[in-house]
């Protein structure tokens, strides 16, 4: 590589092309084409889908965010495609470019632009979150609570399975999750040992299961269907096998299933905590035997 001539003058600013205008025009054109395409065709492909109100909301939210970041990507693409093509060194000799050190207008424009995008996204996300909790775990004192009555289920995670307890069915327990269709569901997620995370993928629900903590999450189911439940927080050896199918069924099927489960598990009923109707706590946080420190 040739060494720089220390006395070489800077490249004369004889370049009268308005590079900036070209980039801005190309950016506007590309964004105007790409953004609607992304919003219409790509956004709706983003999971988790429409199995619950929260899932639909997440799809909507993801679509909006994709649409907002598409022009940002377009700007960078246009800038680099244009800039790296136009401003490459033409010879092996090392020639200095024009000594541009600053431009306050561009700085202000950039700061205002990024701030507007950021504040919009934060405001939009907050609005969506406060609608109904967006399917995320909200802890023992939820702030975004859907109005109306809710069907309650406790999710008890342990190494390495989930157990579901139905307080409205006399504290019935099952290792299968059945939920009635078109219902507001209130899930109380807790753990007996390590930290787990209850992830009902198609429902758009994710809530960490912490030992000794009642983590509440709301979801409004839609029509009948099957969803996947898995653990989303590394919880030890058989973490990947904390995996099951859950079901959303209409109310007749749900009653039938509940009756069958109650019969199936009648034998262990005396060993379980008392249900709320008998003066017990609504959600037991411990089981017998007590969780062992060396459970791993």
């Amino acid at each position, binding site marked *: *590589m040739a060494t720089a001539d220390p006395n070489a003058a800077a490249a004369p600013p004889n370049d009268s092309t308005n590079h900036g205008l070209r980039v801005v025009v190309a950016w506007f054109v590309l964004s105007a084409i790409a953004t609607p395409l992304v919003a219409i065709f790509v956004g709706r492909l983003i999971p988790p889908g429409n199995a619950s109100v929260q899932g639909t909301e997440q799809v909507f939210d993801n679509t909006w965010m994709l649409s907002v970041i598409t022009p940002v990507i377009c700007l960078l693409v246009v800038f680099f495609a244009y*800039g790296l093509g136009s401003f490459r060194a033409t010879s092996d000799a090392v020639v200095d*470019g024009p000594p541009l050190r600053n431009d306050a207008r561009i700085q202000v424009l950039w700061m205002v632009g990024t701030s507007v995008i950021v504040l919009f996204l934060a405001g939009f996300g907050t609005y969506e979150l406060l609608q109904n909790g967006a399917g995320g775990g909200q802890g023992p004192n939820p702030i975004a609570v859907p109005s109306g009555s809710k069907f309650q289920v406790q999710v008890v995670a342990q190494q390495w399975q989930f157990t579901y307890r139905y307080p409205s069915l006399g504290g019935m327990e099952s290792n299968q999750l059945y939920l009635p269709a078109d219902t507001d569901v209130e899930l109380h997620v807790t753990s007996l040992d390590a930290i787990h995370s209850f992830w009902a993928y198609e429902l758009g629900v994710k809530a960490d299961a912490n030992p000794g903590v009642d983590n509440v999450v709301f979801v409004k189911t839609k029509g009948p269907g099957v969803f*996947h439940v898995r653990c989303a927080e590394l919880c*030890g050896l058989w973490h990947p096998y904390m995996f099951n199918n859950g079901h959303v069924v209409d109310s007749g099927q749900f009653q039938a299933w509940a009756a069958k489960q109650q019969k199936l598990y009648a034998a262990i009923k005396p060993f379980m905590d008392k249900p709320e109707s008998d003066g017990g706590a609504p959600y037991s946080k411990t089981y017998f035997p007590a969780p062992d420190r060396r459970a791993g």
Partner: protein
Amino acid sequence: MTEAAIAPPPPLWRRLLGFNLLTGIVLGIGGWYVGWYGAHAISGPSIEYFGDTDYNELSVYLAYIGGVIGFLVGLGFLNYPFARLRGYPPSLREKETGGWTRYFGLCTDHKVVGIQYLWGIGLFFFIGGLNAMLIRTEQLSPHSQSFPMGTYLTIVGMHGTMMMGMMTSGILGPFANYLVPIMIGARRMAFPRIEALTFWLLMAAGAILTTTIFFGGFPTGWTGYAPLQTEANAGIDNYILFFALVGISMTLLGLNMIATILTMRAPGLTWTRLPIFVWGVLSTAVLMVLAAPVLVAVLAMGALDRTAQTSFFNAAAGGSSYLYENLFWVFGHPEVYILALPGFAIVLELLPVFSRKPLWGYRLAVAGLLGVSLLSWFVWQHHLFVSGINGDLRPFYMLSTELISIPTGFTFLCGMMTLWRGSIRFTVPMLFCLAWFFNFLIGGLSGVFLSDVPSDVTTHGSFFSMAHFHYTIMGGLVFTFFAAIYYWLPKMTGWELNERLGKIHFWTMFVFFNSTFAPLFAAGFLGQSRRAPVYTGNLKFLNDWVSISAFLLGISMLVFLYNLVRSVAFVKKPAEANPWSSRSIEFQLPSPVPVHNFDRIPVFSSDPYGYGEGPAPSWVVPAGAPAGRE
């Protein structure tokens, strides 16, 4: 000053008997056994007697602490304190050792430490990379097939811990230690022995983490969440000791950098003339000093839970798993900016050289670095959006996390405007810097999804977040790490790297990096959980694609390794003093840089980015001319 001033070294056998790496290893192993059996005396039953029903954790801790102390003693870290106690005057005589053996012991020359760091970190980066290959081998099948479950989790944990722990010092270790004193016109770091200590602590830590396999590995991944940490087998003790030592090393490294930059700048080097790389190092060092002690504290609590039956994190006995998560991420989120910020700085440092223009918006660039550094303290609970902690604070953390895009955007703007109307030369370091823009754009924008609570519910704990942080850390840090290697290694070693092989390395790495991690965004959206060797069958094609790309990415690293070994060990083509026509001061010195850097301390009259603004100022003051302090 020159080589002639150094006394001829004693014969080899005599040097092997002194304080060096060999002695350090021997005393380290000795110290390990002293600690191990010492703990038996204190605490009775040990891992050997009771199998997996109960352990004597104390023996593991004391063994490794004894090992580290023995290692440091063997390297000679106690010689100087004892010499001072016996009345000898202060000196830096460890700097004066000559020949290749100074790379294998305690040396207080910041340039030697920089090169030690480069090879040491390179070694552990290689081990971490091999772990990544093993992970992708397992992921070739939706079922658990290649490794037993516990082994797989250990591989995942070692990969993550190795990369996050070691690469924290990936740029500050080799490049800041080597370059900061030169760039600020000093002859050494503020605390040269502490500088050496940070490196050797890191090597001891690496050995500790690697030997976790003898204690059954650990199942927690790099985050080490309690109470899984508390109930795990003895391998987790290695994790705790590793990260605690890394934390101590980081704190000392950061303190040393801050002290050096604040107090040892040459005359005329005002804050607005400081190379942007030094600003990047300073903002990173502040994060290190404030964040790493939190890590050490939380790990100490974890160690007490395991050894002394305290219950910081045990909910059944009044503790809280939230405490661990909170403290870990108070460290953990500044940590990821400790990884990212030096990358920003390297990009901004190199772009002016290869577009032959001054750095555009110097003050804005500095504001960007400091802004990220400041904001990174207010975002950590976005890692806990679905954990149920502080549900009412989620809007705040959503906002603060998204605000970080503003100072990050400053870096993008300054970089892009520096390219604007420049005379761009596509050298290998420049290619890596340009790739940073692409990678960090994808990484940053995918981070917006994770910062937004409704989207985070979908993507949290999935391969999406894994792809996101690989784009920011591998695409942001590792790419700039290689840019720095191609840019500065000729200066550091005095030998040129092959440019053709460098370009092959760049293009294969860039293509296969994207081919590896871009599909993982889709896998995460489709529901693939992190750290799990089992996934649903519909994701097999994506995972096979990713695995094959990852293997090819691994091969591209071998191209680099071949280039490095070939250039440094076999071809040995001497590098020019200033191969890039840079105006930065390190390139005005001979290659490699002489032991004392400058014959006389330079006086600065401008920043190093005056491309196109007339002849470069003469940095190095000729002998006899009026100069700054010696």
